[in-house]
């Protein structure tokens, strides 16, 4: 059964936002360039923005249907939405902000006392989980960026939504805390029966947390795919770029099993079937492998003309061109340690991505 079906259209200033996807239980990651409409999509699902036409529904309820003139209020949608700028209530302390997220059972059903107790306990638990101890009575203006984000996350989780929409949930946290909270969220989401959608700029985050990934181009979803599969075979140029492929070149087929990467001035041999719509190829920077001078391989070997080196803490990046036909730059990444500029590099033909 589909847990979330989205199909709508909304005019924005620069383009039309046209989304159409459906997901089952699980987590969906959204990757897309800045300004392509990711936040807008989440807002539309949450009911903050009303689309022009379309239909949005979960297995249980129809959120929006332009034909049937259904448009549920955000309250009835039971959707938890983490705002990109957190939207904490400035007039409430951290504890109150979190408590504000608690959806009360019908007042009369429970005795007031126990409920109050309950609230306090839930809030306390979340404050601990999100490492906000000592800040319970602080107001948002006096919180650091990461503290604000954690408070907002806690507030949403306490509201027990059916669907979770997280807009860059860890962007303001340092790497250490981020990893801890990712694990925390991962565990929480495992016990969470609804589906969740996570927008992130961090592909590792998506890879770690999401079963499925959607790639958005300007205003529409290009691909919806299982995460693992997508990262291995991005199929589309944008997907390759957003999943972190550094080297992408226009390509054309020049022989039965030969492709020319026109940006780089290099030809590659492919034994697989080459799709008709091929127009780009991509090679991940990690997939270039230094080849010995005396290496016997002849295919898919490029003589290196180095153009630049940058070093990150645990790896170094070589920028090079084809020595025999210098054109666009290619990136190669290597772990630290083997810091020697190779004469030639080789790439396994199975690692070459054929893209539309």
């Amino acid at each position, binding site marked *: 059964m589909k847990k979330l079906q989205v199909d709508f259209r909304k005019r924005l200033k620069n383009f039309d936002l046209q989304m159409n996807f459906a997901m089952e239980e699980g987590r969906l990651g959204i990757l897309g360039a800045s300004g392509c409409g990711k936040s807008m999509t989440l807002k539309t699902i949450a009911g903050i923005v009303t689309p022009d036409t379309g239909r949005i529904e979960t297995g249980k309820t129809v959120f929006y249907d332009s034909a049937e003139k259904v448009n549920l209020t955000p309250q009835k949608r039971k959707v938890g*939405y983490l705002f990109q700028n957190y*939207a904490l209530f400035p*007039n409430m302390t951290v504890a109150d902000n979190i408590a504000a*997220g608690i959806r009360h059972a019908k007042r009369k059903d429970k005795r007031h006392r126990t409920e109050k107790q309950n609230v306090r306990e839930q809030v306390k638990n979340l404050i601990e989980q999100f490492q906000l101890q000592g800040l319970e009575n602080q107001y948002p203006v006096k919180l650091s960026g990461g503290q604000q984000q954690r408070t907002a996350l806690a507030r*949403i989780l306490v509201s027990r939504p059916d669907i979770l929409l997280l807009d860059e949930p860890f962007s303001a946290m340092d790497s250490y805390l981020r990893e801890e909270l990712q694990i925390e969220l991962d565990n929480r989401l495992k016990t969470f029966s609804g589906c969740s959608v996570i927008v992130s700029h961090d592909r590792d985050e998506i890879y770690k947390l999401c079963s499925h990934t959607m790639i958005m181009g300007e205003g529409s979803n290009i691909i919806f795919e299982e995460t693992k599969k997508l990262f291995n075979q991005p199929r589309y140029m944008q997907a390759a770029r957003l999943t972190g492929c550094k080297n992408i070149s226009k390509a054309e087929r020049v022989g039965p099993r030969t492709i020319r990467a026109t940006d780089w001035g290099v030809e590659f041999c492919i034994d697989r079937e080459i799709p008709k719509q091929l127009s780009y190829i991509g090679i991940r920077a990690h997939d270039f492998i230094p080849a010995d001078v005396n290496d016997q391989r002849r295919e898919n070997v490029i003589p290196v003309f180095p153009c630049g080196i940058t070093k990150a803490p645990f790896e170094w990046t070589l920028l090079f061109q084809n020595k025999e036909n210098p054109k666009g730059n290619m990136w190669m990444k290597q772990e630290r340690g083997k810091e020697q500029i190779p004469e030639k590099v080789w790439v396994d033909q199975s690692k070459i991505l054929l893209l539309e």
Partner: protein
Amino acid sequence: MDFSPILISMKTASAAIVFTFFVGIAFAYWVVNMKHEKVKMVCDGLLTLPLVLPPTVAGFFLLYVFGVKRPIGKFFLDFFGVKIAFSWSATVLAAIIMSLPMMYRSARGAFEQVDPNLLYAGRTLGMSEWSIFWRILFPNALSGILSGGILAFARGLGEFGATAMIAGNIAGRTQTLPLAVYSKVAAGDMQGAYQYVLILVVLSFLVVTGMNYVTYIYQRYNRR
């Protein structure tokens, strides 16, 4: 010196501000959330109206509406046994009508300055519109709203023209401080007038400063 005007004025101003405060806010909320821009502007114009009428004239109109012989006044008298004109309730009525525009307008401006994302956040968290209003919109518009409250209270306390018309100037019953001041002045008793003015000023000063203090305390969260 007769102390009854002080008591009457305080009772009147307090009763009026309670009503004005909530009704003004309710109107402001209602108008701010109107979909139709034109209707919105018209309603706004209507609600600002009592401000342009000379209070005495406003008093006239009130008298024509709430006088015991007029339908509405009669209705109140017959069904609730409440006589509005020339009674204490008339002083309250006058104060309300004359101060409502200020409350309404200030609250409206204040609401419009609140970041709408906060309201959306409340909605997605499942808060009812009622609690979104009281727990988010209201506290975050507090500066502006309290400004309006102070204006409205002060206006109610100082209301004279409409009160004199619809409530009369009956010592011990409807004679508020401003009316007492006026009477003293009219009789040339400047000494007595000054005393009442002083009381009026001190009273309003206390209340205004008190309200400021409350805002100050309440808005800790805004201080850095």
